[in-house]
């Protein structure tokens, strides 16, 4: 049994570095030790990612970015930042290599803040961190306080009422630490999902190269359509981009839903793997009264759209981070199916 004294002693010994960082308030820069040490710092401010955290103004070296097509999370605004430690550079990978997922060095961090606008004011809900440590990536969720002054580690997640931009007030779910891995897990390890060259703008990548934070321009960048310009893209590209970003982190080999046999990655060319005339395996009642994942020309007979259109646990997809329906995403996928799911 661990006694309280042993706890304190071990904590002090093992985490003197992190404690020292926290003791030196205010933190002058990004606290590399907090990223690297084998600890779970209790406050977001312990990392020093922001010059002004409530306003989400990042420190030097913490670079904002966006994705062409993003994961939809109940309509939350997302503020994304990437941190590469001083003196290090990310390595580009070409789109043919896992979508061109940036190879971020140990000591890097991905920071994503979820916010909603209420009464004309932005309210920060949670900030999720992916920290690249020597032993691999670690995911930690931080929940903002009501005063909007600090975000605290919320290992077990939380639920809170949120008025969504699309209308209804929902019970918004902040995922727990393990649930981070349900989406970010491939072959048992936590990995970043979004920062793939194909889903990042040429301009942003070029700026990263000029700033010396990225070694070169990757091939195949910027291929996924820009979401707000999706009308100009083909139905196929818009839908496949959406499905890749919103579904394929689980529905791919080695990930949470690998056993379904459904693989919705952008690069998947086998229509059966994409669900076309594929029978469900372990969908249970999620299948509704339908026989196939995707029936070309018939979105109303396709399990894929049926589950996207549901908010009921056990039926709704995605299983996590969704308490309302993404009408725009659903429309894009329906259109793809109507046009033959090519």
């Amino acid at each position, binding site marked *: 049994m661990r006694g309280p004294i042993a706890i304190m002693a071990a904590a002090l010994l093992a985490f003197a570095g992190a404690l020292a960082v926290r003791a030196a308030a205010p933190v002058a820069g990004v606290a590399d030790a907090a990223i690297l040490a084998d600890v779970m710092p209790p406050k977001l401010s312990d990392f020093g990612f922001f010059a002004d955290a409530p306003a989400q103004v990042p420190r030097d070296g913490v670079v904002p970015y966006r994705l062409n097509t993003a994961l939809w999370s109940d309509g939350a605004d997302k503020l994304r930042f990437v941190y590469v430690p001083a003196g290090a550079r990310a390595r580009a990978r070409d789109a043919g290599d896992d979508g061109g997922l940036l190879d971020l060095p140990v000591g890097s961090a991905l920071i994503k803040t979820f916010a909603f606008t209420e009464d004309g004011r932005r309210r920060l809900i949670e900030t999720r961190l992916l920290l690249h440590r020597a032993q691999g990536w670690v995911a930690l969720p931080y929940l903002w306080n009501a005063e909007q002054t600090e975000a605290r580690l919320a290992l077990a997640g939380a639920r809170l009422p949120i008025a969504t931009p699309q209308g209804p007030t929902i019970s918004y779910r902040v995922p727990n630490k393990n649930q981070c891995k349900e989406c970010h897990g491939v072959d048992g390890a936590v990995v970043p999902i979004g920062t793939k060259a194909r889903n990042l703008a040429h301009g942003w990548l070029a700026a990263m190269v000029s700033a010396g934070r990225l070694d070169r321009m990757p091939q195949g960048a910027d291929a996924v359509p820009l979401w707000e310009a999706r009308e100009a893209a083909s139905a196929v590209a818009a839908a496949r981009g959406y499905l890749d970003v919103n579904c394929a982190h689980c529905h791919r080999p080695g990930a949470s839903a690998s056993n379904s046999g459904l693989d919705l990655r952008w690069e998947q060319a086998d229509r059966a793997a994409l669900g076309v005339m594929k*029978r469900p395996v372990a969908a249970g009642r999620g299948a509704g009264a339908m026989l196939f994942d995707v029936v070309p020309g018939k979105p109303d007979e396709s399990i894929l759209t049926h589950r996207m259109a549901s908010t009921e646990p056990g039926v709704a997809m995605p299983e996590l981070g969704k308490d309302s329906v993404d009408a725009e995403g659903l429309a894009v996928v329906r259109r793809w199916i109507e046009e033959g799911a090519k």
Partner: protein
Amino acid sequence: MIRHAFVATLLLSAAAPAIAATHQVAAGEGAQERLQEALILAQPGDTVELGAGRFVLTDGLSLDANGVTVKGAGMDKTVLDFTGQKGAGEGLLVTGDRVTLRDFALENPKGDGVKSKGADDIVYYRVRVTWTGGPKATNGAYGLYPVESTNVLIDGCLVSGASDAGIYVGQSRKITVRNSTVSENVAGIEIENSRDALVEGNVATRNTGGILVFDLPALPVMNGGNVIVRGNQVFDNTTANFAPPGNIVASVRRGTGVLVMANDGVLVEGNSIRGNPTSGVMVIAYPLAFTDTRYNPHARNVTVGENVFENNGTDPQIDGAPMLLQAFGGALPPVLWDGNFEGQTGLRVAKGVAGWSLGLTRPAQPLEESRPAPLAVGTPAAFDAAGIGAPAELDKRI
């Protein structure tokens, strides 16, 4: 919400010395956060001990650590109540290896009960999953759901009300399901796309189908087989099929005792199979069209040995049932075979086991083309039981 006193524990947890600890969690206010925190902070060798009482939960729980035991005060004393669940696809998700789950219950999870995925060396002991409203299409799909795992032991568990399978083992290897009771599920026990499974000493009653062993196409793991179904009580599986259409179990006929479909090497022996109105044992090829070239739709090397058969096939859910019943003298013989075989690997039955064949000659052949006839197949060769079942080491944890 994280309390202040919690911080020291948090700081410690990531690099704590490997001394087994017990984390006690009581029912009551804040159970969701307290229990989930304990599951996250548990280290290999630790036990998360659930007190007696009803844990009212709003979200799925998950355990990702290796070597953790989650132990309640008994399957009737510690109840994880998911009646008000708002999110997640299951009640408890386990992704760590060497996990032991024992002596607690889950009630009314919205999706599956316990799912363990890629979780090797797992033991489920005296775990109960109940949908308390009885069989309903709105119940969750699977009660206990190990998938993509090697070394799985399920013992003394109890599942009722699953709208798919009570105990479902999928895409796994080295499996034992024993001494468990499954009732009022669509499928009682289902072994799917799995190898080396022993299903022994269970009670399967009042399901639509009692025990199902089969392979499906287009899955990452296929070539299921090497399965023994032995010493089970499979009786009165008379519940009308309440699965939503679309899933394979929705096609299971009410009153199927043991179903073997598209599998290689299955022994059904020493069971008591009684009062299953469609068929005591059914051995068939996969009946639907498929495009997966890796898939073999045939039931191969299936042996039905000596079993107690009583009162099966009296009210079969099969087209032309009245004529069939008349032809067979009021009840169908206990073993139904579709007639499909591949090479020399067709069905074999012990001497004296009665059966009938649909006389089909190819998988997915329309049933209208069936030519029913009494079963005429060979007697079994010895069945090689070596390597079947979970490794004995797992027994030490119960």
